[in-house]
């Protein structure tokens, strides 16, 4: 099932995808169908009692590491993001006027389903609730070599669209063989496969849970393959992962 979290009729609604429409599943509008264009799409994540941990990976595809002139890392290169950086499907992302290079990053996002601590790779899939698509924008002009990638590059307001759907893990038989693609104004600029991750999803869950507790609703953004290009105000960026969804975002001038 593909789950969405939307604003419609003055309230936040839970919905699922049904025959090309959104079917509301809870509350006074339960059973009502609404069109994709009639709603505001929120990140497809249920609220959590404490700050949501948002882990992101850098250089997790060999070709992207090469593209950025780095050798592939020997252990996951991870950084943390604040939940406030997340926005939903069909939202606007701000590009500061003075920057020269702002690029998308199409990433498979893993949503943790159960409290995970010292989980073995072989058991890792049992701890996953589902998957969604994240676009982990970066503004390279702001890179500094201190705790790199620094938060000014990676934790900016509006710079992490996520969605549209949370797809149940049961509906994704092999998350390690999904095509990823990004288009800018309809033209394909990025194309890859989750099969090419350096550290695959079970390895990442084993790694992070070896020193920290992952809680239900926590996110792991698993990195992006090569094919990054600059995005300008007015550009429509669609980051898509096979079987998970196509996440639309529009760049606007800050």
């Amino acid at each position, binding site marked *: 099932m593909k789950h969405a979290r939307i604003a419609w009729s003055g309230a936040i609604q839970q919905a699922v995808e049904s025959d090309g429409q959104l079917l509301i599943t809870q509350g006074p509008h339960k059973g009502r169908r609404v069109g994709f264009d009639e709603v505001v799409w929120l990140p497809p994540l249920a609220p959590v009692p404490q*700050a949501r*941990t948002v882990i992101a990976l850098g250089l997790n595809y060999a070709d992207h590491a090469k593209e950025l002139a780095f050798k592939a890392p020997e252990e996951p290169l991870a950084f943390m993001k604040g939940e406030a950086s997340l926005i939903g499907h069909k939202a606007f992302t701000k590009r500061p006027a003075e920057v020269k290079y702002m690029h998308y990053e199409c990433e498979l996002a893993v949503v943790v389903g159960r409290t995970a601590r010292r989980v073995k790779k072989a058991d890792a899939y049992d701890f996953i609730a589902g998957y969604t698509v994240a676009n982990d924008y970066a503004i390279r002009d702001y890179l500094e070599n201190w705790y790199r990638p620094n*938060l000014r590059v990676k934790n900016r*307001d509006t710079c992490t669209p996520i969605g549209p759907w949370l797809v149940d893990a049961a509906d994704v038989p092999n998350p390690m063989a999904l095509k990823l693609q990004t288009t800018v104004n309809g033209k394909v600029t990025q194309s890859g496969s989750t099969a090419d991750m350096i550290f695959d999803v079970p390895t990442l869950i084993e790694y992070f849970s070896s020193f920290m507790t992952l809680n239900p609703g926590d996110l792991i953004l698993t990195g992006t393959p090569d094919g990054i290009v600059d995005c300008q105000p007015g550009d429509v960026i669609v980051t898509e992962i096979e079987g998970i969804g196509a996440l639309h975002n529009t760049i606007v001038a800050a």
Partner: protein
Amino acid sequence: MQTTRTPHQPWQPQGTVYGTLLNFRREWDLWIPRMTQDPHKAAPKEPVLYVKTANTFSPAGQDLLLQDGVSEVDIGATLGLVLGDDGQVAGAVLLNDWSVPHASYYRPPVKFRCRDGFLALPQQVTPGQVQDWATMQIAVRRNGDLVQTVDLRELMRAMPELLADVGEFMTLQPGDVLMVGTDCLADGTRPRAKAGDRVEISAPGFASVVTMVGGAA
């Protein structure tokens, strides 16, 4: 937002906790000769931040358990600015921002700073504004001995400037906490703790942060 709770219910952050690196003059000055070398190539221009994830939150009264191969930790006495409902600072807390000692500041410090229990919290928030704390001093005691005095007059970016520079690229939300930084000792290291130690962070007008450090069996 709740900046204070009943004393029976220890405070926990309602939002995301951010830390600031290299915000004390002494550590900055010690780093200057290395800042222009590889891999850094230049001094940091903007605030260098990190996230303390929710698994690090350790409410007042809980011990710190050293585990997973960690046998010693840096003590990180700091002031955390707590954001109120209007997005402005509504209060502050003393915190112990524990970290695994690490010499390199090149890559993000997830393995060093985001371990379970690595942010020791006080019982409650002290309401106020940043100017109230501009000259405050924080005492760090290990097993009763004073091992460090942190003086907020030594901040590289004073609190109003830090808030403004951070706000340029990320909006702090109600309930978020921005830690102003941790100072080092004269030799560039931080005071450390190991299993069996009792560490107390205190300042006038604030709830102390007291932690017993334990080791894995």
